[in-house]
């Protein structure tokens, strides 16, 4: 324990009452983490929840070199996996998409997206895999670019008569803007152009614009 004292709450939240205080130099055992709250057990056997902020000065096993704060900073710098969802328009129809991003490097990421478009007369499902470039990944407001390939499925609604469903390969290019709201949460807006290769002699272009949010694990 590096802080003068830490407060044990009865639950993992700021509003839960404080029922015990651990003094500096006492030992605590960290048992569980739930969001930014840590369940600790004192030497005397009391169990309670402590906020991350109060544990940041706690010292780890090997003495004074690496503090809890460093451990959390490492977590932040090593974060790689991001998941997000967005809503927008796919050629004037409403669409919803879900993506997972894995950051290969600070400025380079790979992303897999699945989406669904709910048109009035037909529905479209698609997935694509993109490579993203984030040249300004150290900025809070950060533009990014992506290109990728995938597949697109168009399914007409049953109320249409004699419509046929189509499946084709597609390619896409994307430009977007990310805003880091907190260390975990990101707001994102992007514009993408999809090209569906419907047959050897025919392609169809779609443009989408979506807004959503994502978070790091």
């Amino acid at each position, binding site marked *: 324990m590096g802080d003068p004292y830490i407060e044990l709450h009865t639950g993992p939240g700021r*509003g839960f009452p404080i029922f015990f205080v651990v003094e500096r130099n006492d030992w605590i055992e960290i048992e569980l983490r739930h969001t930014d709250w840590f369940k600790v057990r004192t030497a005397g056997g009391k169990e309670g929840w402590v906020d991350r902020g109060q544990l940041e000065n706690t010292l780890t096993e090997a003495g004074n070199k690496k503090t809890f704060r460093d451990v959390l900073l490492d977590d932040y710098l090593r974060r790689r996996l991001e998941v997000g969802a967005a809503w927008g328009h796919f050629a004037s129809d409403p669409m*919803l998409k879900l993506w997972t991003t894995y950051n290969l490097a600070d400025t380079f990421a790979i992303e897999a997206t699945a989406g669904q478009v709910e048109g009035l007369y037909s529905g479209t499902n698609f997935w694509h895999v993109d490579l993203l470039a984030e040249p300004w990944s150290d900025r809070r407001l950060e533009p990014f670019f992506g290109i990728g390939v995938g597949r697109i499925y168009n399914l007409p*609604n049953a109320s249409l008569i004699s419509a046929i469903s189509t499946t084709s390969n597609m390619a896409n290019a994307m430009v977007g803007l990310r805003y880091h709201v907190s260390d975990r949460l990101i707001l994102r807006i992007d514009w993408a152009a999809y090209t569906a290769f419907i047959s050897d002699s025919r392609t169809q272009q779609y443009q989408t614009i979506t807004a959503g949010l994502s978070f790091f694990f």
Partner: protein
Amino acid sequence: MRIPVPAFLLLFAVLGFCVPVVRAADEQPATEAAPQSAPQSAPQAAPPVPQPGAESPPVTPPAPQPTPSAAPAAEPKPQSGPLPTQLPAPQPANDQVIEPQVERRPVKVPHIPSNNFEVGIFGGAYDTENFGTNAVGGARLGYHITEDVFVEAVYGQTKVSDATFRLFLPGGIFPTQEQILRYYELDAGYNILPGEIFIGRTHAKVSAVYVVAGLGSTKFDGQSNETVDFGLGMRVFLADWVSLQVDMRDHVFSMDILGTRKDMQNIELTTGVTFFF
């Protein structure tokens, strides 16, 4: 404009007075260094006189207290008296701060188990507008980002029957009397009323009342429709890893199965069990 010579000398005298003080504060042998540099800089001391406008020369050869030949000998000595009293003050800054007596602990912090994910199943009643209420079942996968905010993906399915329509509309509305309605939704939730529930005098369970809202898709009668959902729920943790929850949600989507396109409000009441991992 020329600075009068006495003023210039005075300036040097002031500089010469100041610099040894600074040096002496930096390092102890400064008093020795000053006299050594003095003879070297003595020839340099002459050129500055014709060019007094240049500011930099006086700084680099600050040692030239030389003008009055007696002064260099006289000045450092009185300074060397008070200086040692000033020395101890800046020095502690370079000193190592007292080593804290840290006790080593065997806890491996980097591997704290966390349970921010949740997976759950639920069941209840889903009221499809115009088509009555039927049992619904589903599953959810969630992730708690902060103590307030969580996100979840929900999948559910229920049966919809047009039996009432078939009473006066032979052939009904659907191709078959019973259709399966499936939905999935991506929701964000906020714990608006976190708290505790007290059971007897000795037990308190963590709980939260939350609001959720999200978007998704409902597939029903061959149509897939964008769906907006919102609702209210409550969760009670039985232990750190399991909670019971009740949810009331409204799923809104528009359909044209009854002739005109209209928004359908579909209220759902469910209860479920959720596991955290």
